[in-house]
């Protein structure tokens, strides 16, 4: 043990350098894996509707999303700087962030992400991260470590209101798109033209995702480096952190996401091009407006709200409320479930280096186990098209419901 004083003058005890290096390396590895799983989850946010409507081929869509996530990750570091601010009280009366605590929180987030990925259930990676960190902090320093008013105003309320906002916006935009292009004389309406627009609207969502979600991991790694006294508090994110996080999220986006694309694109509602364009635009507009006022949003929740809203905005379409309910339950469970796993991991991590290693081993076993289980019914770009097309055929849809108003003769 070494005794040291931080920049606030508080005295702390630190483990020997070898232990610290080991823990920091483990945290960085796990943070990058979290970034990777984030990519796995969130490909669907931008690309589910263009794939469902046929605006983009699945492989092309996932590649485009990966590239835009990579580019987006380099474009800002603001979220990375604020990731740890507010939710967990630091300093006097609060909790001192340690690499072990961050590691335990990450274990909670990663395990919950993997479970929801396996079930094809959209959950929020951001909320999984917040939940994991909160759970670990409560075990590490008690309930007083959490700034609950901030959690309510910055996490819980936006989580409830953002999907509703996106759904309402998507509903209105879909109604407008159909009303403007509707022909009462039975002549072609040209709605296939919305497929071209979708390529751009979905790209905007993918780029926005890259500028936000990769930053969360950058923030966690920077926090760990500061906690380990390897970086000065308040300093910029280091370039190697930006590069590795950008690559990790892009790889995750490229290699995963098929399972959730299937749920979001066709499990909720059958998406038509005009509807898909409206949903994508509503998602992008909601994320942009929210970022402007500083809400930390889940892009998954916003995208799901838009898909449901646009489904309701289409005449003769049917939203599968059972699937929608499953998604809602996934959202509600994310924070407490990730918090519970994070808390459990923090309890073990309290044992010291041995505890952290136990956490790491158990986490790896769970992740590999879930991954191997998921391989039994693998969904990839080779079979996702036919599966999705088949499910599309299985549902009876009124292809061209007759307009209520008759054309003037």
């Amino acid at each position, binding site marked *: 043990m070494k005794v040291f004083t931080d920049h606030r003058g508080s005295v702390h005890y630190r483990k020997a350098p070898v232990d610290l290096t080991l823990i920091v390396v483990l945290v960085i590895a796990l943070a990058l894996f979290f970034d990777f799983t984030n990519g796995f989850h969130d490909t669907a946010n931008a690309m589910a509707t263009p794939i469902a*409507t046929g*605006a983009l081929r699945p492989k092309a869509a996932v590649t485009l999303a990966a590239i835009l996530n990579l580019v987006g990750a380099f474009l800002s570091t603001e979220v990375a700087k604020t990731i740890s601010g507010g939710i967990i009280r630091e300093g006097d009366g609060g909790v001192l962030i340690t690499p072990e605590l961050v590691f335990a929180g990450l274990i909670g987030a990663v395990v919950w992400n993997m479970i929801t990925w396996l079930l094809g259930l959209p959950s929020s990676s951001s909320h999984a991260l917040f939940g994991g960190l909160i759970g670990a902090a409560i075990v590490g320093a008690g309930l007083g470590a959490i700034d609950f008013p901030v959690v309510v105003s910055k996490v819980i309320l936006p989580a409830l209101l953002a999907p509703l906002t996106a759904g309402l*916006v998507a509903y209105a*935009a879909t109604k*407008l798109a159909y009303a403007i292009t509707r022909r009462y004389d039975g002549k072609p309406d040209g709605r296939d033209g*919305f497929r071209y627009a979708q390529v751009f609207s979905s790209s*905007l969502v993918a780029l926005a995702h890259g500028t936000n979600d990769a930053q969360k991991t950058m923030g966690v790694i920077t926090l760990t480096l500061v906690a380990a006294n390897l970086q000065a508090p308040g300093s910029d994110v280091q370039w190697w952190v930006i590069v590795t996080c950008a690559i990790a999220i892009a790889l995750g986006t490229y290699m995963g996401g098929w399972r959730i694309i299937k749920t979001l694109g066709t499990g909720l509602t059958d998406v038509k*091009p005009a509807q898909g364009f409206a949903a994508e635009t509503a998602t992008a507009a909601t994320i942009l407006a*929210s970022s402007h006022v500083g809400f930390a949003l889940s892009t998954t929740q916003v995208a799901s709200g838009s898909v449901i809203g646009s489904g309701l905005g289409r005449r003769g379409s049917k939203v599968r409320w059972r699937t929608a309910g499953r998604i809602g339950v996934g959202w509600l469970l994310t924070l407490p479930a990730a918090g519970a796993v994070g808390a459990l991991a923090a309890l073990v991590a309290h044992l010291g280096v041995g505890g952290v290693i136990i956490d790491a081993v158990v986490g790896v076993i769970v992740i590999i186990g879930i991954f191997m289980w998921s391989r039994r019914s693998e969904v990839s770009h080779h079979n996702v*098209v036919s599966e999705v097309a088949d499910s599309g055929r299985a549902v009876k849809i009124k292809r061209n419901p007759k307009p209520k108003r008759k054309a003037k003769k």
Partner: protein
Amino acid sequence: MIDWLDFLLVLVSALVGACVVVSAYALGIRLLTLSGRTPLVTPAEFTDAITIVTPAEIKAAAKRAAKAAKKSPLTEGQKRLALVGAWGCFALSAIAVLVGIYLILGEHLTRLVGGA
């Protein structure tokens, strides 16, 4: 302290922004169809689309579009005007999207340019 005004701001700005982009693009498509150039997506472009479009369906759609264009009550001048209007609407929609991109990256790019 919860700032409810921020939530209202998000709702109104997202609603207005999305509706402007979608309405402008939809109006563009409407005008493009009026000008006799109905957008048709061929199966060659989207071979693995979920909404399956067969070559026969595309052929029938093209035939319907050509027939509708032939029976259009608009004069050639009005059709040209509709075409110009359509591209104007697409441009307006694109500008609105670019404004959105600027909202994401503008501050960062300004800082980058300022720092260079």
